[in-house]
């Protein structure tokens, strides 16, 4: 590494000169000059008036000419390079400079920092244009850039600043851990991960894991790094070693999201059932498997189904991978009334996935109302008492039932029936008002003996309509004792 230094430096010096010497007279560099001016002006108390034409941001909101717009059009016009205007950087030498990983990266770091572009923060410590004319810049600490016998603290500090460093000398376990602890003490996740990458390469995994166990911050960085790298196997192994079996189970279960083929997905979910989930989650994963299994069966038979219902309402999408409730809705829509023995029947789905009565009624109501089969809707709520009279009962409030019916464009007669079932008078009245169930409104006002409201409501009715006449008849009825 140290041997490579002189020629390297030379290369960069050369390339620097080639690349960035700009002649003030040369018009071709007017763009850079503009940059210079802008940067200079930051530190000038009195800005000159070029600000307006520098600030060309488009406030008008017309996206034409904007970058996102242009990308959408995937760029059409545009002249291909008249290259002569720009200085060339000879990049070939960098290809030949190959060496071991970390030393190379340190060389590279050092180069790009001193010769290429400086970090923003640093550049502002310099009061001048030097940033944009790198040939004027002296690397801050050239001499030190390749020193390899740095202590852990100095090493991580240099890493944070993007200066040259070398980790190869940290060979004993103790040194490695010191390095890691220093990185953690610096709070810089980028450096922590860099050190972890080095440790991962240079330590047996069991040793590394043992040391990570009491180091929570480093451990979390390591886990995240493995996740990002897609090293699923190693990740699972590590979680198991850490005794975090539930996390491991979830992590493995997550894989199913990547499996496109439903058959393979189903098999994978089956293999997940035995993973060490918490008790509740185990049930859910079992459900997930069962659900997909059923969906595959239903899909296979419905895909080419030509029954009446499928003709009238062709399926818009496959049922695969839909939630349980959506599956139930589907089944209430296409397979209503099938015996409980068939997988596709609502009864079977309801039972298999332990769906509450409330949820079931809500879903079935939605599906049957969508089909405008009001008879089915009625029978959802009908119960017979011991004398054989039918009565309507619902685990969800009847005002909700009305909402759902109304959203499915139920006729007024159906709506009225359910509005009438609302127990609470005020709620009944407001629902009736909302959905213009005139008859109920009129009756309720009558029952409330509220003459004024009733008379006022007349304004909303069409003259000579049956409702209007009914209202008139009630208002003229001398037997009612109005409260106002």
């Amino acid at each position: 590494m140290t041997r490579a230094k002189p020629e390297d430096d030379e290369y960069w010096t050369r390339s620097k000169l080639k690349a960035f010497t700009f002649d003030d007279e040369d018009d071709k560099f007017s763009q850079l000059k503009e940059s210079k001016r802008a940067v200079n002006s930051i530190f000038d108390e009195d800005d000159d008036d070029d600000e307006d034409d520098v600030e060309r941001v488009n406030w008008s909101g017309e996206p034409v000419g904007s970058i996102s717009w242009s990308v959408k059009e995937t760029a059409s016009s545009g002249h291909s390079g008249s290259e002569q205007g720009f200085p060339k950087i000879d990049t070939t030498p960098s290809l030949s400079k190959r060496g071991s990983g970390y030393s190379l990266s340190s060389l590279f770091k050092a180069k790009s920092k001193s010769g290429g572009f400086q970090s923003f923060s640093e550049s502002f410590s310099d009061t001048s244009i030097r940033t944009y004319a790198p040939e004027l810049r002296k690397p801050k600490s050239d001499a030190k850039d390749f020193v390899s016998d740095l202590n852990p603290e100095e090493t991580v500090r240099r890493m944070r600043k993007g200066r040259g460093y070398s980790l190869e000398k940290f060979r004993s376990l103790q040194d490695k851990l010191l390095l890691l602890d220093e990185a953690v003490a610096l709070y810089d996740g980028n450096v922590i991960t860099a050190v972890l990458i080095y440790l991962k390469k240079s330590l047996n995994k069991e040793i590394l894991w043992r040391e990570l166990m009491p180091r929570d911050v480093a451990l979390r960085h390591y886990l995240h790094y493995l996740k990002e790298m897609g090293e699923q196997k190693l990740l699972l192994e590590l979680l198991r070693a850490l005794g975090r079996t539930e996390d491991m189970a979830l992590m493995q279960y997550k894989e199913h999201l990547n499996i496109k083929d439903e058959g393979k997905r189903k098999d994978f979910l089956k293999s997940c059932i035995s993973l060490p989930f918490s008790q509740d989650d185990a049930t859910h994963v079992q459900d997930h498997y069962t659900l997909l299994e059923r969906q595959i069966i239903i899909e296979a038979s419905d895909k080419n189904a030509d029954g009446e219902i499928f003709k009238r309402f062709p399926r818009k999408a496959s049922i695969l991978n839909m939630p349980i409730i959506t599956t139930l809705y589907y089944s209430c829509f296409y397979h209503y009334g099938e015996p409980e023995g068939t997988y596709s029947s609502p009864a079977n789905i309801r039972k298999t996935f332990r769906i509450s009565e409330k949820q079931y009624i809500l879903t079935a109501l939605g599906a049957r109302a969508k089909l405008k089969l009001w008879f089915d809707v009625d029978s959802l709520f009908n119960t017979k008492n011991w004398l054989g009279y039918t009565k309507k009962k619902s685990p969800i409030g009847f005002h909700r039932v009305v909402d759902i019916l109304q959203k499915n464009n139920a006729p007024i007669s159906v709506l009225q029936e359910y509005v009438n079932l609302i127990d609470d008078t005020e709620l009944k009245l407001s629902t009736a008002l909302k959905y213009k169930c005139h008859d109920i409104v009129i009756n309720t006002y009558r029952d409330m003996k509220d003459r004024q409201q009733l008379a006022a409501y007349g304004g909303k009715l069409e003259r000579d309509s049956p409702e209007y006449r009914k209202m008139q008849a009630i208002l003229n009825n001398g037997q009612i004792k109005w409260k106002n």
Partner: protein
Amino acid sequence: MAQTERRRDAPELPDFSLLKRVARDQLIFLLEQLPGSKDLFIDADLMSPLDRIANVTILKQHEVDKLYKVELKQVVSTSDQLCFLIRPRIQTVKWISDLVNSDKAAGRFRRYKIIFTPQKFYACDNILEEQGVYGDITTDEWNFYILPLDDDILSLELPEFFRDNFLEGDQRWVTTGGSALYLLQNMYGSFSKVYGIGRCAKMVYESWREQMEDGEKRIKQPEFAKVFLIDRDVDFVTPLCSQVVYEGLVDDIFRIKCSSVEFGPDVTSSDKSIKVMLNSQDKVFNEIRNEHFSNVFGFLSQKAKNLQTAYDKRRGMDIQQMKTFVADELKGLKQEHRLLSLHIGASESMMKKKTKQDFQELLKTEHSLLEGFEIRACIAYIQEHISRQVSMIDSLRLLCLLSLTENGLLSKDYRSLKSQFLQSYGIHHLLTFANLRQLGLLVEQQSGETLTVMESKVGKLVNDKTVGKLTDAFSSLAKKSNFRALSRKLALVPKSGEEYDLRVPRDMAYIFSGAYIPLSCKLIEQVLERDGWTGLEEVTRMLNGQEFAGSAGGHSSDAQRIILVMFLGGCTYSEISALRFLGKERGCRFIVVTTAITNSARLLEALLENRA
């Protein structure tokens, strides 16, 4: 509109457009490092920020031929120079490496350059090395730390900060946060005082301090009096509430992206969508952005009347007057007309959408939760919300609010709500629940005992030195929100039944219809008032400590009443409105620096597992 009038003695804000110019110049410089014609690939989420500082003409001037969005798919470019402008993400770097390798295999020679922004990570270099393309690709950093979104909003445009830092525990952006502050300090002058709360805030402060010590000292008059750093996880309640202030509502419904929003045909009442910049340059918007939505209609119709009067002036004008009118006023009036009809359209469309989803009832439930009132009814409402399969994010949001305000759910509620949720929205949300639990957003109540046992067990396993770190980790796992106690202590929820005139807001609670003062903003107010954390010991204890205060080395000058508030993990438009209100009350100005603008949907979506 008392809101929009600034107090006369409120200080002027520094000119942040300089940040854009500097970023653009740096980008130009970097593009020129790869001379000649080249195709440029841009990360999708960098396109909007880039649009704010440069445009296609500028890129073309620097020999960018074609522009592509990074899609991690096969590349069709025929150029022999490819430049990639990306966030430092492993996936993207892998994709580029594959591209280079397939070019090599096909015997194709191209030059490649990756420009990482705002910085490069070692893990990215490592990929290049492992894939055998290190040296075939030149890399650079574009230190584009801060995008000014408005006069008083600076954004790091790093939405992933939230998940990386709080969920994954990855501190990769800590130094970025420090560098952003360091940049502001160098360009605009130093600060006199620093306060903060939160683990990440503390680290960012440390990082900034160290960069300051390493850097050259510049003596400059301070332009900001104080800085306040706050972690998003100090206050999760506020960003999870429905926004009802105009700007926040627009963000919730239409999603503002880099202060630009796309209004669809329902707003424009034509068949086209248009993109609009929403910032202080839009005179109409500027007057309504901080207003409670209920005031906006009245304001807009008044404005429309005024406009009509101004147009009507034309009647009875002679030629000369007409000429001046057309020259001086007409353009302005037309512009105003355009903006006005746009915002009226937006308001109408939002009204419609909100009525359709029974917004009133939703708000009522949120307010009950904040107040701790009729919790069973709230749970019933949430249950029904879930069983109707309406908006998954809203269901999740309500569940989190319930958990945060109640210090966790009772076991039986947790189980049944979770089961229902999985039935309605998909069983794979098991993973979502695991993430929410990890963050402390949605948890099952645990008896104090279980916790102590767990801690002491772990304590025995490891040596003393690390016990502290571990208990830190555990306390974050078992984090209690203590919302009720905090709310009482800081009087966040006004007594119910009191009338609250939203036209004349009396405190920051107006941003939530008078129902709740945002905890984050209340903390800022209290600390600034007390010039530190003294007297707030009980509050900080309930927030898991991690508060700090210090002098930032700048000279204190009381004339400077500009306060910088940095949100680590994102802040909402409602919080910005609240701070603007506070500033107006106190005769100071707040500048918000945030890692990204967030809202409930963005925050929760960041915790879903769509990809494995």
